[in-house]
């Protein structure tokens, strides 16, 4: 399982601040941060701790099994985002 962020993300970084394994990208300061319209959770690193769900002020984060159907696209988008992000970028944080 993983957690996924949907398009109503306002990019206020609350999730990044609480994530214990630093798996939410892009990070402030990363080259693609300013142009990113939302943040994404790396499923390979996420430990399903739920901290980001509680921190999100606009309830834009869902555990995958609870993802409403209308946000189904978010999983594909997430896959594509991390497909394009190199391992070097992921770990440079």
């Amino acid at each position, binding site marked *: 399982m993983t957690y996924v962020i949907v*398009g109503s993300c306002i*990019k206020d970084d609350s999730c990044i601040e609480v994530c214990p394994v630093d798996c939410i990208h892009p990070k402030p300061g990363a080259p693609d941060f300013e142009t990113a*319209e*939302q943040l994404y959770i790396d499923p390979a690193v996420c430990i399903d701790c739920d901290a980001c769900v509680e921190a999100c*002020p606009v309830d*834009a984060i869902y555990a995958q099994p609870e993802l409403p159907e209308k946000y189904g696209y978010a999983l594909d*988008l997430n896959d*594509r985002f991390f497909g394009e992000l190199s391992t070097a970028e992921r770990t440079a944080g």
Partner: protein
Amino acid sequence: MTPRTRTGPRVAIVGAGPAGAFTAACLLRACGNAEIDLFERLPTPWGLLRGGVAPDHQEIKRLEDTFDRQTLRRGCRFLGNVEVGVDISHGELMRHYSAVIYATGAQTDKSLGIPGEDLAGSWAATEFVAWYNGHPDYRDLEFDLSAKRAVVIGNGNVAADVTRMLTLSAAELERTDIADHALDALRASSIEEVVVLGRRGPAQAAFTSAELRELGHLDGVQLRVDADEVELDPVSRQWLADEGTFTARTNVELLREFAARPERADARRRIVLRFLRSPLQIRGAERVEAIDVRRNEIARGHDGMLRARAVEEDAERIDCGLVLRSVGYRAVPLPDVPFDERSYVLPNARGRVLTPAGEALPGVYAVGWIKRGPTGILGTNKRDAEETVTCFVEDLAAAALPDPPDPGREQVDALLAERQPNVVAVDGWRAIARHELENGRRERRPRVKLASREELLDVAAQRTGAPAAVTW
């Protein structure tokens, strides 16, 4: 035991929108004993979160709970219905506060500079937004929705918002907190088609992919985009491959998918996305009857930026009865503080407002759109606020803040009592919020907004009794 210092630094934040709210929250984290007064021109806080974010995006409006918890519930005072520059001047604020932080946003719209722009039926999209969101200064606007076609000029998220609002069904609108006067007008709307004009191509559209996807998935609405207009020119194709953002690539893919869709016979309304089209002229004898558009091509400028360049050929005429111009917000100068007339911001270095000579004006700061221009999304203001607050904290530590001659809270309150008999403080705002939520519960809506200043002030002063009876 010595009593704790009663006051920390006294700070006035001008504007209770997202930038002001994030600043107040950040300031309280950085400097717990700061005494913050949040000034707001309207009787209600949270700026564009209440008056800009579209009514069908209620999830985003939940941010107001965080704002409330991190500011008003932590002792930050709300001084609503007070206009700085009218009820109290900048000079007076400087007599009472160690610092004044401007968070006034960008309150007007950019103009297109084309003939016919001021014809009846041609509006700034921001006026339409303020009207449907119940901004009290806009409730009396009358949008004529009797034509079959509307044209939206622009490709950003405001353009996407107004396009959705013009095409959602009455049943969908009734579940939102759209202002009642707008709900009534949109229920009776005859608009069947909304044409959205983008100056540049699909790769340069400023929509987020989330907003674009939403336009393509509205119930009973067909989204049409011509396959030829989605096809990228060589310059854009190269740009997308080399420098295109993740959003731009996603948008182009979405648009290709939309272009390949079959026609829907059962659609209630249509959205037509047109790319590489600039408005030349809005035509009409007394009111909008049509708009002339010109075709563009994409060219790389000397600075490497991709620009729209006019193609020499006859203009195309699109008949329409409503034009919403959505080409960006613009800030207006504030009395008695410097203003950069070229960039439309307060001249500043990381939030410290600068004199024309380029020196920091002690104790004067800027945050949000009045600081950086109208760019970014809600969360951008949090990082922006952190930067401004960092400057403030540095100046506080360096004793670089001015010493206000009359630092007492009572003195501000006495001055305001003389100037503005209807200041809305936090209890007044809570009375408004309760009233709106209660009426919303009765109608199974998130809230029913009070949309006139008189009603807002009456409810804030608890001059009215129980919420109005349900009317249907």
